[in-house]
């Protein structure tokens, strides 16, 4: 590829974008090459459309599939899926993968799991690549320094058929977290604080790059959590510059380069981070040490507040639209203005989802659960079969079951409840997932988004609790 001689300082996004341009049209549209494509069991229609038009999958070697949305998490037996429409989705993925030659990590394979957990875990997600999936939380993968974004079902068909996508180049926004995060603060708290700050549409049309010492400090798991929720801040994608933690995380994974190829890849990856002086269309900065454990109180991810604060009073909202919105959210959530968040009782806990189901998440939750007793029904749903195995090898499952938590199989589960795992109307759930929308976890269910440690603290106390007081130092 022809690189400009005295190159302008470029953002990481710009560098990755440029390498993947197939065609630049004068009208501003770009045909972008897609390096890796992840597929889940909701992609049934996309395959059907491909077949119905007699089209072939251009690069089956670039696509990886795993069922996650529709499979129940109390069994690994597909034949027990009661709803015929759900079964068609799960079985359909197996059949479509077989018919097209796509690699599949199917139910029963230890590598199966939530598609956004499986990609990084298998080394499919690598720095510098373009990666798409027919799911909005594809932004997760950018934590390893790639350009990853969610697409709709028609676009999935387009990628299957052409390995490309038509895109208008998004703008670039940098979100800086300056200063070290405090004790017990996780990637989840950071991203909820960011969304509360920029708003649910704050990143619309932008790719968000997270930077600063508070970000570097995060583990890869924490970074994946953070990038996962870029979409909740309106972002097209989220990304974090790769560093030694990234390379250490990737090394040795099945689909990652090995031997001499690793050395070549590493040299390339080191050239990816945004250059000094690269300009962003927008920039915001949050103060790391000020971030506290966060809890959402409303029905948009931007409705988030520190656990030390109280439910806001709509009367104090800056304008009428926001006042009405907050009042509507509080009515749905069954909350009174001014109630301290730490006094809100919780009916159920869900620890899982592509946001927070990785080994570090489970370790944090177990550290809180250890030697205590869950006061309410509480589920742990690991993100993949491999994570489940690892947690069991570390004895985390014992800690959870002894504390009265339910230990389940890998999948999306109660994050979206497409597999039928939902809450009851009116039920209040402390959830480590990413969306607190009206009805997201079942009709009438009230969802509060929190970190795994905060969810475990709610499980053992029956209400929201500042987990910093419960974590072993």
């Amino acid at each position, binding site marked *: 590829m022809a690189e400009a001689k005295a190159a302008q300082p470029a953002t990481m996004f710009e560098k990755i974008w440029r*390498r993947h341009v*197939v*065609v630049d049209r004068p*009208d*501003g*549209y770009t*045909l972008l*090459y897609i*390096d*890796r494509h992840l597929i889940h069991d909701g992609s049934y229609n996309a395959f059907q459309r491909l077949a119905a*038009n007699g*089209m072939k999958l251009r690069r089956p070697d670039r696509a990886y599939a795993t069922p996650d949305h529709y499979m129940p998490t109390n069994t690994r037996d597909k034949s027990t899926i009661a*709803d015929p*429409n759900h079964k*068609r*989705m799960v079985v359909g993925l197996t059949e479509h993968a077989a018919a097209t030659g796509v690699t599949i990590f199917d139910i029963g394979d230890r590598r199966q799991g939530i598609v956004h957990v499986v990609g990084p875990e298998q080394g499919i997600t*690598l720095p510098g690549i373009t990666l798409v999936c*027919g*799911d*909005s939380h594809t932004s997760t993968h950018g934590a390893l320094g790639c350009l990853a974004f*969610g*697409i*709709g*079902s*028609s*676009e999935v*068909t*387009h990628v299957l*058929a*052409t390995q*490309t996508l*038509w895109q*208008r180049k998004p703008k670039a926004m940098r979100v800086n977290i300056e200063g070290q995060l405090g004790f017990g603060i996780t990637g989840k708290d950071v991203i909820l604080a960011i969304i509360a700050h920029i708003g*649910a*549409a704050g990143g*619309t*049309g932008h790719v968000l790059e997270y930077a600063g010492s508070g970000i570097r400090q995060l583990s890869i798991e924490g970074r994946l959590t953070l990038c996962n929720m870029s*979409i909740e801040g*309106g972002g097209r994608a989220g990304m974090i510059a790769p560093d030694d933690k990234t390379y250490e995380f990737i090394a040795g994974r099945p689909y990652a*380069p090995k031997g001499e*190829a*690793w050395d*070549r*890849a590493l040299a*390339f990856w080191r050239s990816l981070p945004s250059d000094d002086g690269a300009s962003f269309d927008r920039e915001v900065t949050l103060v790391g040490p000020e971030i506290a454990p966060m809890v959402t109180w409303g029905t*948009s991810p*931007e409705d988030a507040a520190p656990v030390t604060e109280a439910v806001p009073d709509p009367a104090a909202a800056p304008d009428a*639209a926001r006042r009405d*919105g907050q009042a*509507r959210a509080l009515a749905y959530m069954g909350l009174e203005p001014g109630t301290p968040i730490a006094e809100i009782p919780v009916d159920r806990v869900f620890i899982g989802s592509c946001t927070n189901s990785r080994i570090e998440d489970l370790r944090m939750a177990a550290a809180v659960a250890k030697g205590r007793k869950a006061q309410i029904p509480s589920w742990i749903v690991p993100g993949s079969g491999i994570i489940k195995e690892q947690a069991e090898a570390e004895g985390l499952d014992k800690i959870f079951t002894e504390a009265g938590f339910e230990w389940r199989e890998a999948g999306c589960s109660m994050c*979206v*409840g*497409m597999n*039928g795992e939902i809450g009851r*109307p009116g039920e209040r759930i402390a959830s480590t997932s990413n969306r607190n*929308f*009206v*009805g*997201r976890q079942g*009709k009438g269910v009230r969802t509060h988004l929190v970190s795994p440690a905060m969810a475990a603290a709610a499980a053992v106390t029956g209400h929201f609790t500042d987990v910093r007081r419960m974590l072993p130092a």
Partner: protein
Amino acid sequence: MTQSSKEQPPPFERLTGTAVAIDQPNVDTDQIIPARFLALPRAEQVAHLFNDVRYREDGTPREGFPLNAPTAAGAQILIAERNFGCGSSREHAVSVLVDNGFRVFIAPSFGDIFHNNSFQNGALPIRLPAERIREMIDHLARRPDARITVDLEAQTVTGPDNWTQSFEIDSFRKQCLIEGTDDISLTLSYADAIAAHEQRAAAETDWL
């Protein structure tokens, strides 16, 4: 290029019709069609547009929800507040609106994926300034049968008070909508460029 890879609605030009206003920001795709209906065949999804906010527990319509107003029948234009269609990538959120007769969505801003998905289904998402949206919503509250005209060729919306406001649209998307072009056939005309890119990339990043 008429070869179509899916159920493509007819090409879009100009329409005049009634509108429904959902006066809320951040209307997410889970509200537009809740997750439990996504595995249903498309023909069965049509009845579940805004299901949980539109109907009571027993299936009877909630008064006051805009889509349940008698004047909502036959509306082709949907007007909403900022960040409409945020949330999941589910394309059903667009197709269920299209199957209910909507061809135009007007809001100050949209969820990015919903915006892209609209074009894929022959629907036109239009961003207008928040003040214009407010005017239209207020007007519709008084006169729910007011008519709005959308002219894609001229890139204008003419409101119930006869003001005309122009809107921006990518010429690429505009052309696709007007001609009913299918993206995949268009892309396949660039097959040589794709192959050339693959060759170059195979040499540069041979570990993929």
